[in-house]
């Protein structure tokens, strides 16, 4: 996983609520068996509209997405996270996230930042007024900063530590293989197997 400490870049406002993962990457794009190339499917249907904010030249190269509430609801497809990352996003800021999307993001090093509705709107307004404005997402300080403003955000210590160090969850769990083996010995005998 890519480590995340602090990132400064330009931000693009996505003023839509309930952006489900079918919009982030439509199902036809999920047929690939590789892990690359998903940026082409990012918001594929919406990007066909020249007026869609991601097509606005002033936001080219933006690396922070400032979205409406309930971003990433719906399907569990991690492809949504891959698409955002491969397109160039390092962080997504929203008032609420779909639980699975948020979880998937933290496994991949795409930082989901939860800020109150009013703060998200203020940030959207700021980057609409000045698309060249730089925004800093600072995981060390748990803070978002832009144009003299700042807002703190919450993230649990463990997830923060994992993101800061870019650690792979599987490696961490395998250190507890003995605990797993011991648990397995105590499982109820009637539990089914697939064989």
């Amino acid at each position, binding site marked *: 996983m890519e480590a995340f400490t602090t990132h400064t870049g330009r931000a693009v406002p996505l003023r839509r609520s309930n952006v489900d993962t079918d919009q982030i990457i439509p199902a036809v794009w999920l047929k690939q068996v590789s892990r690359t190339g998903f940026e082409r499917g990012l918001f594929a249907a919406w990007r066909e509209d020249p007026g869609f904010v991601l097509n606005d030249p002033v936001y080219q190269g933006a690396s922070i997405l400032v979205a409406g509430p*309930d971003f990433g609801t719906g399907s569990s497809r991690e492809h949504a996270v891959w698409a955002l990352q491969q397109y160039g996003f390092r962080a997504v800021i929203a008032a609420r996230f779909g639980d699975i999307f948020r979880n998937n993001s933290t496994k991949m090093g795409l930082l989901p930042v939860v800020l109150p509705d009013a703060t998200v709107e203020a940030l959207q307004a700021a980057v609409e007024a000045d698309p060249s404005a730089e925004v800093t997402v600072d995981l060390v300080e748990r803070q978002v900063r832009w144009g003299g403003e700042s807002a703190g955000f919450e993230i649990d210590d463990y997830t923060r530590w994992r993101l800061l160090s870019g650690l792979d969850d599987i490696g961490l769990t395998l250190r507890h293989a003995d605990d797993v083996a011991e648990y397995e010995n105590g499982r109820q005998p009637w539990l089914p197997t697939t064989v």
Partner: protein
Amino acid sequence: MGRTLAEKVWEQHVVRRADGEPDLLYIDLHLIHEVTSPQAFDGLRLAGRKVRRPDLTIATEDHNVPTVLGPIADPVSKAQVETLRKNAAEFGIRLHPMGDAGQGVVHIIGPQFGLTQPGMTVVCGDSHTSTHGAFGALAFGIGTSEVEHVLATQTLPAYRPKTMAIEVSGALPYGVTAKDLILAIIAKIGTGGGQGHIVEYRGQAIRDLSMEGRMTVCNMSIEAGARAGMIAPDETTFEYLKGRQHAPSGEAWDAAVEYWRSLRTDDDAVFDTVVEIDASTLTPFVTWGTNPGQGAPLSGAVPAPEETSDPAAAQRALEYMDLRAGTPLTEIQVDTVFVGSCTNGRLEDLRAVADVLRGRTVATRTLIVPGSMRVKAEAEAEGLDEVFKAAGAEWREAGCSMCLGMNPDILAPGERSASTSNRNFEGRQGKGGRTHLVSPAVAAATAVTGRLTAPADL
């Protein structure tokens, strides 16, 4: 203080707990399909890891499969299915491929085999894993990174979500189904209402549901934003499980049932959130918008955006759906009716459709797709397929079909459907397609008239 059902199942699966870390949970059953697993198997190979418990893992082909006989025409879909076959063989995982009698939508086959049992933890790289909660299992969808984690370790690190009770008092009126109930619940609490929670569905109307109805309700928990949905196991659950291929038998059955009976929320347990609904006030429910929370009673009208909780989203939805505020929902003409999916692709759903279609003719393209090969065989043994064909509907092979646009069953741009599936997102059933979520009975009545219709109005 007493504990909730969710807390009991959670605690039973904690492998390791440490301050400041998520719990490490043991996973009893891992379901796999072709879409969200290839990159996970690649990860294992790269790291030189094995699947820890292939005997707790089962795979099926569902999302990409065509629902007419014959090979997969699309080379990309075909490659994905072949990748699953190769991975299952290499890592020693049981697979039910296309054409196999055990094949079907992942959330339909688990319960059918008796693999989904009360008190288990069940995961799958698929958000509708919540379906299995109908048995009192803790079942939730995961992403591909977590699929790899479960393959490698048979565990998942996770923080325990909050608990929510949805108390459904009273009895569902005649003609009102589990699907109408869950659509009404989502419209009430919103697509984010359950975020961060495990929902337990409780109350008379829930206890009165069959296992299949309970699966329909739990299936759509994710559409309310919940991490999982659960229903305490009872005699209905035990009755369903008894004699299934992977259910315990003999003394093991008795021991299991004794344990399963303890899987209920204690009377003095406290939920973080409680929602109450009176089932007796409900009527057939459909969606008008582009998320499952944008729904209304079928007897109502398309709402004006300003009457809704999110006017901007409603405005966008009405534009996408090409609908005008104030239009009675029963005046909406559809081009296609889809019956199927892990929400409503089981035998009871097909019976409900047959009850409406018997002796009638469909006025519109109607796809009836069993959720599994076994559902197909059972439906045919009852002669339901004859009813469908006589009415002019298409009777298909098992798969996800028109639930999502990954296989040949898709809507054309601008086409409108009444669908028994679970998501009405923009383009979910094919780019530019417009979806109204409905119950199987409403789908069947709609097929007869060509516009959204309740069976009672035929």
